[in-house]
């Protein structure tokens, strides 16, 4: 597979649910999935990877560090990038953050290890259609992760 190289794009919302403004803790590209830092900083988000904290949604605009950025949250229907150009994400799959900043992969539903903030894949939403090439449409539906008891 070829890893996606994040680039700004229009996520073309078909529907907007919750939309809130957050402060950019790093440069954010329009269309990237964003999350709190694992350490947690007030109202501040970063492009999501597997080592960030819980997800907030999808950036509706690009932003430089310190700028405010509007973020589409639960109930929104829009387009996101997959982590690989030729990945397979099918309609109905739940997707999560990935190791590639601001992109998604199919959510691994196993309750296997203590995945948590800083080492976790948080659910972002559900694919509404099969992903063609590197992008696809999802409905954002975020929630907490649950892990096996230690």
């Amino acid at each position: 597979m070829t890893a996606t190289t994040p680039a700004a794009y229009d996520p073309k919302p078909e529907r907007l649910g919750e939309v809130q403004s957050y402060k950019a803790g790093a440069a954010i590209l329009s269309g990237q999935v964003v999350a709190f830092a694992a350490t947690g900083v007030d109202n501040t988000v970063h492009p999501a990877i597997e080592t960030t904290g819980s997800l907030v949604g999808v950036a509706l605009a690009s932003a430089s560090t310190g700028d405010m950025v509007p973020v589409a949250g639960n109930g929104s229907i829009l387009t996101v990038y997959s982590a690989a150009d030729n990945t397979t994400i099918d309609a109905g799959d739940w997707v999560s953050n990935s190791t590639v900043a601001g992109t998604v992969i199919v959510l691994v539903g196993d309750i296997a290890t203590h995945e948590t903030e800083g080492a976790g894949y948080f659910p972002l939403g559900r694919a509404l259609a099969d992903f063609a090439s590197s992008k696809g449409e999802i409905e954002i539906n975020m929630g907490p992760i649950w892990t096996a008891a230690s």
Partner: protein
Amino acid sequence: MGNTTAAAFDPKPKYLGEVITCLATAEILAGQWVSYDATGVSRYVSPGTTSLGSPVGVALHTQSTVGGPVAVASNGSVVLSYVDQDDGTADAGDYMAISTVAGFVKVMDGAVAAHNSEGAGIFPCGQILEDLAATEKKYVRVLTGPIWTAQS
């Protein structure tokens, strides 16, 4: 106020999502999280604790009359909340859950440890947007959902 002593306060919604009218099983103070009874009684809620049923959201006003209506800010709402003193602090981005102190929340333990359920459950109720110490009120995005349990 001591954060484990319930007192009414204005939850100052930044954003209102779903707002549901429920009925009070017991006195409810403005700003308290409310939950269904563990046995489940139609539309009746009480200040949320781990011995109750699933949470609904945050009471937008005080209701002292049993059976009286109370407006509850539910999913999608961003409201002020207290954290249970036992939990100390919460970081922005932490998922929160109902605590043992009526109407308060604590950082959610994500472990699937036992068959926690209604009447004995730590239900998730939201995502905190700001760092929060035990003696403060900070904003939480209400986000209720089911709990998951270990396979029996």
